[in-house]
């Protein structure tokens, strides 16, 4: 389980950062999306006593009430807030992206493609 999660976070972060550094606005927004997914997964893995594998999410009768037997509720609360805020900000960024596209006629992040720098393929 840990290795799957770690790989997922790593791949998402890596591709997110790569896309974020690309010159097209759509690539930037995809990069920001992937980065926020990676961060959300990362928050989950940061519960007390590590990942909650095979632990109850809600209180059960007869199970001792400590973090050895339950999933830590705190990262869940954090990740919920982070998802909502990240989603809203991405939507806002999308609007600005479209406005920029409409005003400059290009989807380059600077509003104009530079001619002297050859883009990476």
């Amino acid at each position: 389980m840990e290795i799957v999660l770690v790989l997922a976070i790593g791949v998402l972060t890596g591709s997110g950062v790569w896309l974020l550094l690309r010159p097209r606005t759509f690539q930037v927004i995809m990069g920001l999306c992937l980065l926020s997914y990676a961060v959300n997964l990362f928050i989950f893995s940061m519960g007390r006593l590590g990942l909650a594998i095979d632990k109850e999410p809600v209180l059960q009768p007869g199970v001792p009430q400590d973090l050895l037997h339950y999933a830590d509720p705190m990262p869940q609360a954090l990740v919920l807030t982070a998802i909502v805020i990240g989603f809203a900000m991405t939507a806002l960024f999308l609007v600005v992206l479209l406005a920029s596209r409409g005003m400059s006629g290009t989807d380059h992040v600077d509003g104009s493609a530079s001619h002297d720098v050859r883009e990476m393929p």
Partner: protein
Amino acid sequence: MTALHALAAFFMPHLLLAPIALPLLTAALMLLLREDQQRLKIAFNLFSTLLGLGVTVLLLVWVHHSGDPAPLGVYLPGNWPAPFGIVLVLDRLSAMMLVLTSGVALASIIFATAHWHRMGVHFHPLFQFQLMGLAGAFLTADLFNLFVFFEIMLAASYGLLLHGSGRQRVKAGLHYIAINLAASSLFLIGVSMLYGITGTLNMADLARSIPTVVEADRGLLHSAAAILATAFLIKAAVWPLNFWLVPAYSAATAPVGALFALMTKVGIYTLLRLWTLLFGFEAGASALFGSLWLVGGGMVTMVFGAIGMLGAQRLTHLAGFAAIVSSGTLLAAAGFGLPQLTAGLLYYLPSSTLAVSALFLLADLIDRWRNDGAHQAPHEHGDDAPFLSPELVPTDTHNLDDNEQALVGRVIPAATALLGLSFLLCTLVITGLPPLSGFVGKFAMLTALLNPLGLGASADTLPGAWSWALLALMIGSGLLALISLTRTGIRHFWTSHNRTAPVLSVLEGAPIALLLGACIALTVQAPTVMDYANSTAQALHTPASYVQAVLSARPVPNPTRAAPAMPLPETP
């Protein structure tokens, strides 16, 4: 004073919520109004900002006159004790930042009512949401709430930056939003790592548990703190994370730019608060972690900002670079962790913020004057230098000075005089020349650098290499700022012989006078303000009392229903 203090004490625990609740309610109310009810919105906005200023001044009076050693207002919004529920804490530092925010906001909103608020929709609600986010960031004592308030502040700032639209603003806004979204990701990573290591997000509880973190986790703890600090350093515009600042701030409309001058100070505030709390002298093996990074980063930022000021062709760019220099000075001074130096920087912080805000407002008026009523000259849409038109380049046969009329007997119009005088005062404060508050602040910091243990007590301790470097940089950046501001002043005020006098309304002159008047008041009241800054710095560098006050705050007991009068059992 005593009457004010009594009034504040009467409202006290709940008054702490007012700086957050008041803008929230005002903004919500204004969202219900139609776009053509502008006058009503202005009235609401002005009233709410004025009331906010009143409330924050009350809070300042309360916190300053409530006896020693460290008066703290602790408010439990959810009525749960500290490490479990969220906490709002008011101490001297947050009270000072709140008053500063309200003051700058008032000036900015008065300026906006002249005409800028009509350049787009929903200016007034966004403005109030921005104030709410700022106030929340200054009051909260919980890392995750800090994140939420940061996002409120940023979301409103995206809207405000794009206010007025136009290609420049959208382009600058795109970069600004992208870098802030990336910074928010770093913020979340840092916060969740800190939670994973210490099991708490309450700042006081974090400060208590950091010395006891096991040795194997200490590296992880430090990297978490470093990642978190990077998010704040982006906000504080430290080099090399500050290339977004100048385009964004100079593209924003003038009142928004003036308000944004505060936003870099939020980063400084957070760093100062968290660093002194979590990595102060009492933090055991982690004491003063990252000190050299703050000092070094601040110094490089000062150099970058000073060179930028020297190269800036436009007034708004100049103001942006001035914000960067001030930010760098504050960061470098904070990194030393000396109470005396922190006191100096706490004096310098409000005065430099006020001056930079005033410069943003002034830049708008001067640009409009120069461009005959337009806010931007046509040639400024490109990247040309605005002054290098062919007839201005001197040649051997043509000397500009020969055409100049003698200045004797010419009347200076009042509006020109106001602009010139305000520019002069801004220059004095930003460069740190006597007699205004910029000088007092820099002087206090230089004194602290030369006498690290206090005047008279540090006869045999010599300042180290870092102190000398900061000392030189502070004086050097002041000199470069002076050169660039003088050059700009000469260009705008002395070489304009056949221009009409600027047309100013009272609404545009008053806020600048308000901001600079506050700077003069800071100078006149320097002993009182220094006294306040000293107590603030002492409290910041002894976080034990803060931790103690937050963790010992008890929830209000539930109002129990009055027990029904039991009839006494009748004894036979």
